[in-house]
């Protein structure tokens, strides 16, 4: 294979595999937060901000793979 095509393939695979974990984690966080909001609607506001922060933390894995993909595509 040529180098250019390997690069494109590698970047695509990097994003595809890298985002699996973060997607699962985000779904888990959001699901749990919804569950506890349904149980105790009084603290829903408080939970929501914590949920957003936690989701952003989980997202960082996918962001790292995005950075790697960008490095593969543009820096090499």
């Amino acid at each position, binding site marked *: 294979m040529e180098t250019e095509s390997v690069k494109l393939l590698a970047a695509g695979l990097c994003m595809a595999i890298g985002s699996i974990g973060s997607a699962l984690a985000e779904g888990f966080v959001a699901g749990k937060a919804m569950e506890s909001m349904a149980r105790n609607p009084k603290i829903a506001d408080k939970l929501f*901000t914590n949920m*957003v*922060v936690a989701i*952003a*933390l989980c*997202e*960082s894995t996918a*962001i*790292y793979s*995005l*950075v790697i993909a*960008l490095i593969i595509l*543009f820096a090499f």
Partner: protein
Amino acid sequence: MNIPTISIPAETIAQIGPIAVSNSMVTTITSSLIIIVMAFFIRRNAGVKPTRLQVAFELVLEYLLNQMTLAFGSEKRARKYFPLFMTVLLLLIVANQFTLLPFVESVVTSDGTSFFRTPTSHYSLTIGLAAFLLILGHVIAFATHPLRHIGNYVKLQLFFQMKSIKDLPMTLIEFGLGLLDIIGEFAKIISLATRLFGNMFAGGVVIAIVSGLMFATQFLVPIPFLILGILSGFVQAFVFTILSVLFISSTTNAVIQSNNQ
């Protein structure tokens, strides 16, 4: 299919002496000006009977102050750090949503590079901001109590607290973990900066690709992605601010709490 060129570094549009003025710099300065003008405007009409804009701003302000009070432990300390984080939050909100202003993306220089660009989709701004905030936290903690702050990372005091030689492996592990925290501090800077950059950059790229896909997809198809971009712009501005509040408060609180013991 004509996908527009995607560039990670900001394009240089002018040269003033040794400083290359890039389009993200222009946008950052413009958004700062927007904030200053808005501040004057709101300050002039502010009063006991609030105007609509004042209510909106007080909402954001109070929310951040509540979060900071929770993180810093007391409202007095939270108020001390408040202006810094409010500035960061306002700058990021305005900067993230800057390209939503109509026609700003159509302003181009003579050789075709656009004059404005979302400044947070340029890595220098985010890494600069994150490094400044987190290093500031360390400087404040170091100034408060130098020995304790170093002792939080290089945990030599554990060796003096050992009761018998059997504790040595556990102590060595904790000492090593303390050293690893130093690397963790650098990882915090990088992950904080990259999160904001990645989200804003990816949002821009998705819109550019979708609208460049076909002639028919230029008009209505990018709208859902634009809405998603607006949402992630606000969320990421909040997340960046709140995470930096948490990081700084944890570094500064660690020194103060061990002071009380």
